[in-house]
């Protein structure tokens, strides 16, 4: 179980590899990676602000809740902050379980909760200026299914 909040890039492939190698007894590994997306070709970059201290607490709480709900043999959350450019990797989660349904459900749960319950805020910079990304109703609604 590990939670990392960092400004530095991470190596998604290397993290997947190490995570899968470290999960003895688990038959199923699921990973998710979020990438800075330039939807209309105008995005220059993004700043991710966070609340040091609370971020780590919130992520630890979300991860503990996931382990409470599903029999996970391991879980990993990495989330970056600071300046990012298109195609940079923002964050990843990984889950390992005996059965694939548990690994999938836990990974989706971690994503849904960290979207709306971990104190990160994104500001996008484009040719037109800079804007804080608004929270989506659908992200809040996604929490009700758990």
């Amino acid at each position, binding site marked *: 179980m590990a939670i990392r909040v960092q400004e530095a890039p991470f190596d998604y492939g290397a993290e997947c590899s190490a995570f899968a190698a470290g999960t003895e007894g688990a038959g199923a590994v699921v990973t998710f990676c*979020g990438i800075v997306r330039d939807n209309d070709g105008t995005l220059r970059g993004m700043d991710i*602000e966070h*609340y040091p*201290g*609370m971020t780590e*607490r*919130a992520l630890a709480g979300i991860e503990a809740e996931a382990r409470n709900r599903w029999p996970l043999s391991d879980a990993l959350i990495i*989330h970056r902050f600071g300046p990012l450019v298109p195609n940079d990797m*923002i*964050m990843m989660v990984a889950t390992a379980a005996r059965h694939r349904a548990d690994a999938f459900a836990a990974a989706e749960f971690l*994503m849904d909760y*960290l*979207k*709306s*319950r*971990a*104190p*990160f*805020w*994104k*500001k996008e910079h484009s040719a037109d200026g800079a804007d*804080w*990304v*608004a*929270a989506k109703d659908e992200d*809040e609604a996604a929490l009700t299914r758990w």
Partner: protein
Amino acid sequence: MTLTVLYFAWLRERIGEPRDTITTEAATVADLVAELRTREERYALAFSDLGSIRVALDQELSEFDAPLAGVREVAFFPPMTGG
């Protein structure tokens, strides 16, 4: 009591500071917000729509009607957009 009050994202930008240290007798978060609004125009503007603001007390998400007794750090910020 003396509170550390933190602001994030556009709330921080509107207020122009990442944090204040405030001595207050406010009983609840709502009381504190009412007090902040009277400070200066930029606070009144920043706190004009509470529906778009979230609050954390000592780094735990909370509500505007929560009591401040025993709290040391209050943070205000927009809905979170992680992931």
